[in-house]
């Protein structure tokens, strides 16, 4: 049934339909609304048979989740940004122990300078932690992905992060088709743990593993992700049959037929990209785009197929591999290694900077002329940067960069005024 609600609320209500047994909450913008809503449902009794634990930190949040999951409970938590980094040790531990925890990331930048707005730096920092990472394009998908995430996680005994852009999705009101309890119960079986802490059948979980077996353990983690590559499309198809909606899958192509230029991106920005693509297509520009949903495991084969006919590729990333450029771009290049083509990395929307259709159209045309740098920063204020660099060469103690630039921008705006 359709509702006009906030993304966070939609996710919360969908998670509730998945009948979680333990939820750990620690506040951090912008995921806070999700756990607040869930907390309310548990307190009111609408979400029965569930323990809602207010923990003392994100490290505690995921640790409680680890214990609950190991004890056989369907477990959920959510975090973002600094929170994800603070729980980093536990993030690796949860996947290492093969615990099917589902965690929402309300994607947000990482400080310093502290910044609460959206980009992908947080989940990117954990991309190799052994979790499955699914990126939601819309709030509808964000909600739906959680249902698929629980099933995928529990089938594989592997934790899943559902990444949705902070504010852009978490705080956006949209028209959402919310699943019903019957639908979810019919599609998501109760949790059957692969291993469980049970006094009746005791085991020791979390042994110390030495050089003699550690590599094998790691390979098996990798193999698990390869199995996920097979399961994700299947679940997406089954989900479509049950719920009548396209959600998830490994990736989605948009108007790539005959496209010379293909744009690749993660998450909500794909909407704006598709708008730009339509506009350019209207002018006869052969361009299309790919929205990657499953970032980990990374669907090398599917990406390679989807880019088979592209002449050039523009990878638009909401995170920066400082000193290199793009992370997604690197993965895409690996995918097309057999038949290399020009790949432009575009770093955009860091710390919540708006990505506009106008900028994108301009960017894509430039790309078409192959006039882009291999690493391009979208809508960068070069005046501020050149002035700061000049100041640094002049004065050794030139002060904090961020403050300086803000000051400049102030002057700038006052001049405009």
């Amino acid at each position, binding site marked *: 049934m359709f509702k006009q609600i906030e993304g966070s609320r939609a996710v919360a209500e969908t998670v509730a339909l998945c009948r979680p047994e333990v939820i750990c909450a620690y506040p951090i913008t912008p995921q806070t609304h999700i756990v607040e809503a869930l907390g309310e449902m548990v307190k009111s009794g609408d979400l029965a048979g569930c323990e809602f634990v207010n923990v003392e930190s994100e490290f505690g949040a995921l640790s*409680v989740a680890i214990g609950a999951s*190991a004890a056989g409970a369907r477990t959920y938590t959510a975090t973002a940004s600094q929170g994800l980094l603070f729980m980093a040790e536990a993030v690796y531990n949860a996947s290492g122990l093969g615990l099917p925890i589902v965690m929402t990331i309300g994607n947000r930048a990482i400080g310093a300078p502290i910044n609460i707005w959206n980009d992908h730096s947080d989940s990117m920092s954990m991309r190799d932690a052994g979790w499955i990472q699914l990126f939601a394009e819309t709030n509808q998908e964000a909600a739906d992905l959680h249902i698929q995430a629980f099933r995928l996680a529990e089938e594989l005994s592997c934790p899943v992060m559902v990444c949705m852009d902070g504010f852009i999705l978490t705080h956006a009101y949209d028209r959402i088709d919310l699943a019903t309890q019957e639908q979810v119960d019919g599609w998501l079986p109760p949790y059957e743990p692969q291993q469980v802490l049970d006094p009746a059948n005791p085991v020791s979980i979390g042994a110390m593993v030495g050089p003699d077996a550690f590599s094998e353990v790691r390979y098996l983690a990798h193999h698990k992700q390869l199995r996920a590559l097979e399961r994700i499309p299947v679940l997406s198809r089954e989900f479509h049959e049950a719920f009548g909606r396209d959600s998830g899958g490994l990736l989605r192509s948009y108007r790539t037929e005959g496209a010379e230029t293909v744009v690749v991106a993660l998450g909500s920005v794909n909407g704006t990209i598709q708008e730009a693509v339509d506009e350019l297509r209207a002018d006869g520009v052969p361009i299309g785009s790919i929205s990657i949903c499953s970032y980990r495991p990374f669907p090398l084969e599917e990406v390679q197929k989807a880019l088979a006919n592209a002449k050039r590729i523009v990878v638009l990333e909401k995170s920066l591999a400082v000193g290199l450029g793009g992370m997604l771009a690197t993965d895409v290049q690996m995918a097309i290694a057999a038949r290399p083509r020009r790949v432009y990395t575009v770093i955009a929307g860091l710390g919540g900077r708006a990505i506009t259709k106008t900028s994108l159209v301009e960017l894509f045309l430039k790309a078409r002329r192959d006039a882009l740098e291999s690493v391009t920063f979208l809508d960068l204020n070069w005046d501020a940067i050149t002035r700061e660099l000049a100041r640094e060469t002049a004065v050794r103690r030139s002060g904090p960069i961020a403050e300086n630039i803000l000051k400049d921008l102030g002057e700038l705006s006052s001049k405009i005024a």
Partner: protein
Amino acid sequence: MPFEQIKFYQTGTFTVGNRLLDLSDRTVQADITRSNALNSGHRACRGCGEALGARYAVDAAMRAANKNLIAVNATGCLEVFSTPYPETSWQVAWMHSLFGNASAVAAGVAAAMKAKGRKEVRVIAQGGDGGTADIGMGCLSGMFERNDDVLYICYDNEAYMNTGVQRSGTTPAAARTATTPSVGPEPGNTFGQGKSLPLIAMAHGIPYVATASVANLHDLEFKVEKATAIRGARYIHVHVPCPLGWGSEPQDTIKVARAAVESGLFPLFEAEFGDVTARTPIRHPQPVENYLKLQKRFAHLFRPVRDEVRLTAIQSIADRNIQRFGLFQEVAQ
């Protein structure tokens, strides 16, 4: 006295077992069918106090919980020597996650058990002083403050032994460790540092806090069994000598622990909802020197010359405990 004085029995009244007592009145360790929660073949050093304390505690909890027990372990000696792949020494449902999160993981297990309505299952978390007092402090405090249904047992050997004897927040004054070497004008650990976990636990106002020692098994078991029966957050702090880190003889582990108790340096008491409610009186008082002399980590207090000033300072720490907890009071019969 927290455990009932065995009436009209002298020969080995304080021993582990007692052939003339009913089985129910004997310690778990005297039981031929004890659970051996931590079984043979583990890789602990000779005379390891932590291995001993852990089996004492978990066996007692197993009896009290009628074997419905789940144990969560922090990283540290106990975890490393008990579960190196491919062998584990545990006979209980056991889990190790990280160094600093045992209390939180246990809280998660407890939450899961509550959600599943499995009231009969009791959850314990255990770790060393490092994983408890230092890196695990945040999670521990959270678990206390939420009054999660977890019994946390800290095996305090007063330093980071697994990594090679470095100073921890419970390392006593003057003790030599790898990071507080016995060199310079003030050798060993600095006076005026360190923290008391039991008192911090009490400050949370949780239902039960107790200290125990491998030197007094009856007392330790009594406390573990009592704690296991209580709901909510509970904390037991067990003093466990480490022959390697303390430079004591392996066969002296219990002797050293006993000297700590009877000198007053390690007071045995119980607290409920933040107030001390019972203490275990000292039976045969000893000066702190008896304790210090058994350990090379304090050798610099006696050689090359006796460090009277700091010996007096340590004695006064003990005297303060004795006075503060009334450790000399007569055994209540």
